[in-house]
């Protein structure tokens, strides 16, 4: 794998988060939803356990289900006895083919905003719900930090100066053509400076 393959690393990171979350709680499944910045939809990005094969890529409208609660309120939570609720069970069964009894979910916070939700389904009975939620919250915080670092790396790669002057000139030309407002005066002065330097 090339060191520049950030997408590959991100995919493995997301998968690793759900694998660890599932094993930490001896759970039937764990998944990550990321918030689509354009629509607000919640999109399944990684799944471990039940539904692993078919779920990645499927979406839910904003504000639906437990993940919707968590994304909206920014607060972690646990819901028990959810399978007793007909409405939820139908939705879940239709979309995932698996109806959980309990759901635990925490927000993934990146750059001070909720970028997604980490869910754990049907964890093994534990000593304390509060301890479970604390542990999931801590782990979700760590996962959020990793996702933030990932995005920082991607941004800094995108900002690397172009090493091909011809491509750079072409891009500058395209930028100037598409503008409705006159370009920034400082940018024009910089271009003039570059022109002087290249003429030396």
């Amino acid at each position: 794998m090339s060191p520049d393959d950030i997408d590959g690393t991100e995919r493995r990171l997301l998968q690793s988060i759900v694998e660890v979350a599932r094993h930490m709680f001896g759970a039937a499944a764990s998944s990550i939803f990321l918030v689509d910045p354009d629509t607000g939809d919640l999109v399944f990005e990684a799944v471990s356990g039940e539904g692993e094969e078919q779920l990645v890529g499927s979406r839910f409208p904003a504000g639906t289900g437990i993940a919707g609660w968590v994304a909206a309120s920014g607060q972690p939570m646990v819901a028990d006895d959810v399978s007793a609720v007909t409405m939820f069970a139908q939705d879940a069964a239709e979309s995932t083919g698996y109806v959980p009894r309990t759901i635990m979910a925490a927000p993934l916070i990146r750059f001070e905003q909720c970028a997604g939700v980490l869910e754990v389904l049907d964890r093994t009975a534990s000593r304390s719900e509060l301890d479970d939620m604390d542990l999931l919250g801590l782990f979700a915080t760590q996962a959020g930090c990793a996702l933030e670092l990932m995005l920082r790396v991607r941004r800094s790669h995108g900002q690397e100066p172009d090493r091909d002057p011809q491509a750079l000139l072409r891009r500058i030309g395209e930028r100037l053509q598409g503008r409705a407002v006159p370009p920034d005066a400082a940018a024009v002065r910089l271009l003039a400076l570059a022109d002087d330097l290249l003429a030396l």
Partner: protein
Amino acid sequence: MTPASTPPWRRERRAHFPGVPAWGLATSRQAPERFDVSPLAEVSKEWAWGGADGAGVRVCVVDTGVDAGHPGIGGLERSYQVVSVDGGELSVAECEPADPAGHGTACAGVIRSIAPAAALTSLRVLTDGKTGTGDALMTGLGWAIDAGFDLVNLSLSTTRSDFRGSLQDLADRAYFRRCLLVAAAHNMPVVSFPWTFSSVVSVASHDEADPMTYYYNPAPPAEFHARGVKVPVAWPGGRQIRSTGNSFAAPHITGICALILSKHPWLTPFQLKTVLYLAADNTVTPNTVTPNTVTPDNVTHSTVTHNGEAHVP
């Protein structure tokens, strides 16, 4: 012109250029205004809310909306939502009493179960799902504070530090308008607002089953612990599930505050917080040695404060 029945904290404020006219009062020639104090007696749970049902207290649930038709809600006074008008500016408009997510209905149901006669209003500021919900929260909260609610339940928080200053201004405005904000503490190691402000009442969870049991936390910012584990909450479709989270602890304290205010309507926010503190299950007054309720034998309460007593090992 403000009607004479308007309480002093809801009067229109004179326009004050900083210091002009001065905020001072020439008490040598003008008597200070009479204030109908709700005196604090021996504060116990019985004094605080015995016989109260929340009647006359207006509560706003700032959340994902509330399903007014749910049997656990029993109707709402009004329903509002933050909408985007022309030019992208946000404002508040009346809406259908619905809750696409369910979170607000769950919180409102907890308040209703404790204060059955309180008037509940829903203000939806969440659910568009996009990340820029902070703006809707600011617009909605500002509206709720000006609309004259006695209590605002905030089972949510924002992690965006650029909202900190304006949110703090709103919390202070609420405090001085005698509108108490009850906010859920965030139970993750992140910085978020407004629950961390001293002008609000912040609530985290304890894991006992009694909805009226709550504790004062001597090591804030989370000031109180209320029931937040396996709470029976209203769920869309007229059902009920059990949920855990500080989101469901905060409305317990909101409900208890509604009871207290319905019995003692002239309490100010700082008095109300004091009453909450004095009637908590782990506080004692100098006259009584035992806490407000008997502590189970198998539980050690390290947080019990024995006022005036030194702990010598």
